[in-house]
């Protein structure tokens, strides 16, 4: 029993009679015809079954003598049909018994005793395995296996159907459906169209039962002409009237589909003549031979949306696997392959003729092996008589007459769907299954032959054909069908090759009538070699050559090239010593970097990089950065014009010396070009060089102007941007992704500036720094750096890791957590394992300067050992242990140090947490007052700096301003309004601050917005903005000169990390998250748009450089676009057609007009 595969039982037919087929041949009218039947090589026995029944009688026990009313002693499972064992016949000639009858000793999946009998009270009833007292009848099942034997041969579909249901002669046949989702393996949909225009579906076709069981007539709204069934659920039918029918609702449970939809032809005068469907494509030919591609076809919309006319005229097209397309051109009857069909471009690019040379045809004709080795073949249509496969290599005359199979196709380019084997192999149990219909191509030259003739030799292994009688072959349908009249007309050409000794001319190719690519899987990107037998034919030439022959084109090409070569020889050979007309010096730096590739999966790939600098005819230097990479063994490059680059940003990375290159476009996409160098020196060289080139092309050099916008990345790198006058133009502000940022040496966490050139910074270690007026430093050497005012700068920061423990009753707190727990050594989130040994400084610039030590200053407090307790991870931690606490953690810190250089000098000795410099009112130039500068120390003390001026930006001394509690943030507005945020999250306003009373007189407490703790405040000309710990930005409503504290907080935005309000009351922030087209970026510079005197809160955000930005100070930019000037500038800019250098040049011009400080 167990030797039988179970699926035979699941097939579950109890001795079923196979339906008859009409005693008519499977045939097509002359000149037409295509056979694509699944090539099932697997020999699958099917059980034929019979069930003998017995009745118990008191005398003889169970015996075969039944009651007169009983069922047959031998019956099918229903008992209604008499089926003696010797009366069970094979369904057709194409089946054979595999074994003799035997008793099925299983019942309901379980073995039975006593010879497989099952018992019941009476027929028909529920049978049980066990004989009971009331069991009056019993039955058992006899099984005999049969298998389909007609493999590798043409098998007539048996004709035993009900005569009333007989299909008339077939007109077209299509097989598909083998990839309908989740359907049983091996199931196939076979559809046919009869001459009367009816559509038939063959039931139960599968690999074990390739002939199926019966024909079902499908109702159609009109008479069908031709049918095409795709591997999935597409089924299209053409109607004699020229429309197409589309079957809807085809699925696993309903392979026949549910309803028809009508698709109108592209033009009403030319109906659809032929259609071919694939997985998600439909191609059609109309009566005027035009080729059409149906747009928008998919499973959900099998009808598609519209027709697109394609190039070329074809007599037929055929869609093969992967939606690849073959066609027979109308013009020259050559076979064409649609090149460039990919999942994204299903309509492909061009028709390419498949070169089918006849010499090879001759040498290969009849040799099925050579064809098979190609994995694809183009053979003859089946025609003529003979039940047996007649290999034509034994039949020379038919060879000579028959153009025969195509040039073999290189095997490597194809996905060979089956094992090649000899066509004579017809035995059972061989080889593997193939589900693909094979292809048959028929040259028209041999079309109508009145007498039967032997079949072609090209019978492939997978689909070995046996020829079938063609009894009514030459009947031309009354309606025009797929090139039929012409096809038959071409038969006059058929005598061509006989007896010719010379090879045929190139234009003298076989005239094909039918092609099917259904067995030929062409990978979308594979390079096919079917096209290039002729030498030196370039692809585009050949695609053009629908009417110009390849030979002609090749000759022309040769001639053109020859003439060119002669010309070159004539004009150059004796004159090579002449000078070139223009010699332009180009400066090239090349190197090898790594590039973060822009395809998925993203990774670092090695690239060759070249920076080319040359002088344009206007004297300006242009530079292009080329990045050469290899993808899929194809060399490609991207290039960036450096005058379009908006920022070059070193990227924080533990392992790589990397930097990102932004253009406005890439800023919008949040996808910079990321490059990495092998060494720090290498990266610095590139950064300095690229940066210098960018500055040169924008004519930006020297120290930043006093109005410059300063910003800092999360890495601590300092960037500065020259504001264009239209940056704050209320009507048409410059998009801030166009701002050009250049780096200034040094390392800071906070930078604040005012328009008199006073710039202060605060390091990660809270050291206060003042800007010296230099530029460059850091990695910028030479021209990119000022020769003086550059000093060594160092910064120190701590790296934190967490030690996590869980309590258990036996050992108390241990470092053994639950399996689901976080790492026992982790980062603050617990998601990343961070051990003391494995944790590295944040980047390669940093080095450790201390050992790990416990950090007791974490929020929430700690116990004496630094532990914080909580009920579980992750939770809020507290500094003492309670009964409910099962986990604890403590924070370890380790200091690392970075040493760099930049235009910064330390302002000793007080360490600062925040600093703010008074923004100068527009128009108010240096009026002799010292520059008001307020700060908060790292301890939370409020300080006021005295003696700050352009000449002495560091000031002279600190004035301590008393507070009740430690402060966190401070900001002074243009009118000496000082706002501060205390560590408890509330705000304060300092009264009576003036040049004469620089420290003011007293603090006014301002409550924070409800349930929010403020963390930062920024005051511009009049506007007051504050930021809370949850990233909400608040505008202070009701601020007037007489009541400077204002009345209430109004919510402006969330998603804000840092705010800077400038002297024009312009609002800039660092946004927390910004979604670009390529990725998310955290820390993005954003500009509030629509800020007007009557609408100080603005309207929306304009997104600029980022992510990775931490801080911005807009407070030095009091450059307001003059009304008229702003329009002029706009005109100028549009006149330049948006040359990216425009804004920078304008900015440069503006600087001059304002008298910038130049070194």
């Amino acid at each position, binding site marked *: 029993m167990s030797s039988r595969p179970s699926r035979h039982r699941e097939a579950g037919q109890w001795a079923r009679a196979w339906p008859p087929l009409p005693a008519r041949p499977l045939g097509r009218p002359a000149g037409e015809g295509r056979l694509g039947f699944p090539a099932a090589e697997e020999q699958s026995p099917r059980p034929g079954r019979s069930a003998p029944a017995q009745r118990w009688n008191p005398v003889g026990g169970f015996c075969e003598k039944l009651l007169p009313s009983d069922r047959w002693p031998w019956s099918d499972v229903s008992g209604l049909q008499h089926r003696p064992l010797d009366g069970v016949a094979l369904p057709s000639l194409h089946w054979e018994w595999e074994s003799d009858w035997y008793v099925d000793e299983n019942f309901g999946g379980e073995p039975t005793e006593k010879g497989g009998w099952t018992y019941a009270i009476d027929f028909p009833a529920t049978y049980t395995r066990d004989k009971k007292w009331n069991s009056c009848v019993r039955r058992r099942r006899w099984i005999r296996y049969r298998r389909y034997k007609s493999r590798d041969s043409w098998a007539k579909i048996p004709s035993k159907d009900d005569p009333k249901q007989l299909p008339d002669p077939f007109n077209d046949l299509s097989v598909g459906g083998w990839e309908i989702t989740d359907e049983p393996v091996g199931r196939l949909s076979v559809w046919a169209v009869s001459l009367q225009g009816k559509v038939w579906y063959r039931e139960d076709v599968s690999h074990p039962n390739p002939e199926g069981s019966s024909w079902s007539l499908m109702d159609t709204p009109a008479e069908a002409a031709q049918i095409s069934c795709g591997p999935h659920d597409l089924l299209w039918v053409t109607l004699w009237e020229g429309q197409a029918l589309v079957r809807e609702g085809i699925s696993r449970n309903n392979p026949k589909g549910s309803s028809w939809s009508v698709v109108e032809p592209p033009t009403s005068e030319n109906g659809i003549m032929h259609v071919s469907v694939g997985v998600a494509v439909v191609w059609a030919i109309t009566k005027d031979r035009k080729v059409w591609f149906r747009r928008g076809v998919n499973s959900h919309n099998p009808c598609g949306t519209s027709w*697109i*006319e*394609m*190039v*070329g*005229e074809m007599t037929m097209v055929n869609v093969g696997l992967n939606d690849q397309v073959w066609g027979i051109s109308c*013009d020259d009857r050559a076979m064409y392959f649609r090149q*460039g069909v990919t999942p994204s471009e299903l309509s*492909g*690019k*061009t028709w390419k003729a498949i070169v089918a040379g006849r010499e090879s045809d001759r040498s290969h004709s009849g040799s099925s092996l050579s064809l098979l080795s190609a994995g694809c073949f183009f053979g003859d249509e089946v025609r003529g008589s003979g039940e047996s496969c007649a290999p034509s290599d034994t039949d020379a005359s038919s060879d000579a007459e028959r153009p025969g199979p195509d040039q073999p196709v290189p095997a490597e380019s194809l996905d060979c769907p089956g094992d090649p084997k000899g066509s004579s192999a017809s035995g059972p149990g061989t080889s593997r299954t193939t589900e693909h219909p094979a292809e048959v191509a028929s040259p028209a030259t041999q079309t109508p032959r009145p007498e039967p003739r032997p079949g072609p030799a090209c019978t492939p292994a997978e689909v070995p054909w046996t020829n079938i009688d063609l009894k009514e072959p030459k009947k031309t349908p009354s309606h025009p069908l797929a090139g039929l009249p012409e096809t038959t007309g071409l038969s006059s050409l058929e005598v061509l090759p006989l007896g010719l000794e010379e090879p045929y001319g190139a234009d003298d190719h076989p005239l094909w009538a039918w092609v099917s690519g259904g067995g030929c899987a062409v990978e979308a990107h594979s390079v096919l070699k079917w096209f290039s037998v002729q030498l030196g034919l*370039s*692809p*585009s*030439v050949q695609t*053009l*050559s*629908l*009417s*110009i022959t390849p030979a002609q084109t090749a*000759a*022309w*090409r040769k*001639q*053109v*090239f020859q*003439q*060119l*070569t*002669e*010309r*070159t020889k*004539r*004009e*150059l050979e*004796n*004159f090579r010593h*002449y*000078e*070139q*007309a*223009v*010699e*332009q*010096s*180009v400066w*090239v730096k*090349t190197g090898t970097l790594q590039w973060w590739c822009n395809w998925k999966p993203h990774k670092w790939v090695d690239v060759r990089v*070249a920076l*080319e600098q*040359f002088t344009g*005819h*206007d004297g300006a230097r*242009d530079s292009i950065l*080329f990045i050469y990479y290899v993808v899929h063994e194809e060399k490609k490059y991207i*290039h960036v*014009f450096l005058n*379009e680059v908006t920022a070059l940003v070193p990227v924080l990375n533990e392992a790589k010396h990397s930097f990102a290159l932004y253009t406005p476009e890439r800023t919008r996409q949040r996808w910079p070009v990321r490059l990495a160098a092998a060494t720090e020196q290498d990266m610095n060289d590139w950064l300095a060089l690229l940066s210098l080139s960018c500055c040169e092309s924008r004519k930006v050099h020297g120290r930043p102007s006093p109005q410059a916008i300063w910003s800092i990345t999360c890495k601590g790198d300092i960037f500065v941007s020259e504001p264009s006058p239209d940056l704050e133009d209320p009507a048409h502000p410059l998009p801030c992704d166009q701002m050009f940022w250049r780096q200034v040496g040094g390392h800071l966490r906070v930078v604040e500036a005012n328009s008199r050139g006073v710039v202060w910074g605060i390091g990660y270690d809270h050291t206060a720094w003042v800007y010296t007026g230099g530029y460059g430093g850091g990695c910028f050497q030479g021209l990119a750096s000022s020769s003086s005012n550059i000093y060594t700068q160092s910064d120190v920061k701590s790296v934190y890791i967490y030690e996590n423990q869980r309590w258990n009753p036996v050992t108390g707190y241990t470092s053994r957590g639950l399996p689901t727990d976080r790492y026992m050594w982790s980062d603050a989130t617990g998601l990343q394992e961070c051990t003391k040994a494995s944790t590295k400084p944040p980047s390669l610039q940093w080095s450790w300067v201390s050992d790990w030590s416990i950090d007791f200053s974490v929020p929430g407090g700690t116990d004496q050992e630094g532990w914080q307790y909580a009920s579980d991870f992750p939770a809020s931690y507290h500094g003492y242990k309670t009964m409910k606490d099962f986990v604890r953690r403590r924070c370890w810190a380790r200091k690392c140090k970075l040493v760099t250089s930049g235009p910064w000098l330390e302002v000793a000795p007080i360490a600062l947490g925040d600093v703010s410099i008074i923004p100068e009112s527009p128009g108010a130039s240096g009026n002799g007052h010292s520059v008001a500068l307020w700060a908060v120390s790292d301890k939370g003390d409020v300080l006021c700096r005295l003696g700050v001026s352009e000449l002495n930006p560091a000031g002279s001394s600190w004035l301590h301003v008393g507070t009740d509690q430690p402060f966190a943030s401070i900001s002074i507005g243009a009118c000496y309004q000082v706002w501060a945020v205390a560590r408890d999250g509330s705000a304060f306003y300092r009264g009576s601050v003036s040049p004469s009373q620089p420290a003011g007189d007293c603090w006014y407490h301002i409550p924070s917005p409800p349930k929010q703790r403020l963390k930062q405040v920024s005051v511009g000309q009049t506007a007051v903005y504050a930021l809370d710990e949850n990233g909400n930005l608040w505008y202070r409503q009701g601020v007037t000169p007489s009541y400077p504290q204002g009345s209430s907080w109004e919510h402006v935005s969330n998603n804000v990390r840092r705010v800077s309000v400038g002297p024009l009351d312009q609002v800039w922030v660092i946004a927390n998250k910004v979604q670009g087209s390529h990725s998310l970026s955290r820390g993005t510079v954003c500009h509030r748009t629509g800020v007007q005197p009557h609408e100080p809160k603005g309207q929306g955000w304009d997104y600029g450089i980022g992510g990775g930005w931490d801080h911005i100070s807009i407070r030095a930019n009091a450059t307001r676009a003059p009304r008229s000037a702003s329009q002029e500038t706009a005109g100028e800019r549009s006149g330049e057609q*948006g*040359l990216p250098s425009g804004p920078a040049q304008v900015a440069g011009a503006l600087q001059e007009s304002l008298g910038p400080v130049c070194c």
Partner: protein
Amino acid sequence: MTDDKDVLRDVWFGRIPTCFTLYQDEITEREAEPYYLLLPRVSYLTLVTDKVKKHFQKVMRQEDISEIWFEYEGTPLKWHYPIGLLFDLLASSSALPWNITVHFKSFPEKDLLHCPSKDAVEAHFMSCVKEADALKHKSQVINEMQKKDHKQLWMGLQNVVSTWSSQEIETTQRVKQDRFDQFWAINRKLMEYPAEENGFRYIPFRIYQTTTERPFIQKLFRPVAADGQLHTLGDLLREVCPSALAPEDNPTPKRQGLDVQACAQKV
């Protein structure tokens, strides 16, 4: 033949050996030596003659110098014609090098356009490209291009004409090749047509003849005939300029050894 690199390269790197001589009536302080140069065929005279200008200006007085212009055997050379065209049109039968006379005086206002700067050349070149694209693709391709693509095209053309002095020969070679690629990376877009169309809408061409007064012949010409046959250059000439065809009626393109599309590109 847009993807036939061999042909494209030969067109691209075509050079004409030229001897520049100062016009005899120009006043010089000392004798002006002739100046020999390899002129790129695919460029414009005023784009590549900086050296010539410098060379002759050295022997002239400043006040005698006005706008430079060139003449060959009495015919002023139009700077807005490609150099290769000028040569083939006027001098292809003469011996090499091509003898061009240099003038600094008496600008032939009625024959030549002024060329105030190289921007004028760029403007002219770009307008030709745009005109050709209007014929080929209803301007769709050129309009979809970004400013930087235009620039790359122009820079590519400009740099055809330059040799790159660099320390390493290898680098020079590569840069040259890159420049060619750089031009074609953009120009290819201009030379493509959609798969469903059998070629450009119209073939952009101009036929220049010395034998007629007309500056050139330009007509709308589709690449494919009404019957679907592809047109050849021979068809084009037969239609628009039958007189140009030799009696033997060779359908292959003869002029400059360039095919229709390359000619079109040159225009």
